[in-house]
């Protein structure tokens, strides 16, 4: 699955995107965050405060309990601040 990052998350991770194959027990966005946090100290820190994170699957906003099955693009970013 392609992970894409924006704004503060992108800067904290030092990359725009990366690819991961999640293990079979990763079912939801929340599971994926837990697993990602184990991949590096940088991931652990960037994803620590869930209240400051928002998510999109295939470019649709979703909550942390959304199932990731079938999605090809998983975006993680801070609350939006446009306008």
């Amino acid at each position, binding site marked *: 699955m392609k992970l894409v990052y924006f704004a503060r998350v992108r800067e904290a991770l030092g990359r725009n995107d990366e690819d991961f194959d999640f293990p079979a027990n990763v079912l939801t966005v929340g599971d994926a965050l837990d697993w990602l946090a184990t991949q590096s100290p940088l991931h652990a820190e960037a994803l620590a405060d869930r209240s400051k994170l928002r998510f999109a699957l295939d470019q649709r906003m979703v909550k942390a309990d959304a199932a990731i099955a079938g999605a090809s693009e998983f975006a993680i970013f*801070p609350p*939006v*601040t446009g306008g």
Partner: protein
Amino acid sequence: MIRVSVQREAFDIAAETSALEATGVGAVATFTGIVRGDDGVTAIELEHYPGMTEASLRDICDAAQEQWQLAGCTIIHRVGRMAVGEPIVLVATASPHRAAALESCAFLIDRLKTDAPFWKKEYRGDAVNWVEQKSGDIARADIWDS
């Protein structure tokens, strides 16, 4: 008529309102957001999620057209770096009814602030920080759901 654009360059409000006036209805309203120089801010920089941004702006226009009788709905949002005083965003609507045109502009800008994937950095000279989402913006967008 729905028109959304995410662009680096400034927009032409006269061209946008002319297109809406050409829909043949009696009322056109606009809202323009401008970079404020509050608290020493000298510039801002906007990042967005290409593809998702345009889709979310179209969704917001669709929602406005469900709620009000609109002949046209336009959202133009700039990205990249902008100095204090530069326009950031234009929303504009055309309707047979003046209240619908003005109320739908309020809806569009409120909704855009919570739903569209833009992120804003503020520059104060060389210092830079990401803007935090305002709880007031969430509360304002929620009003339209009630």
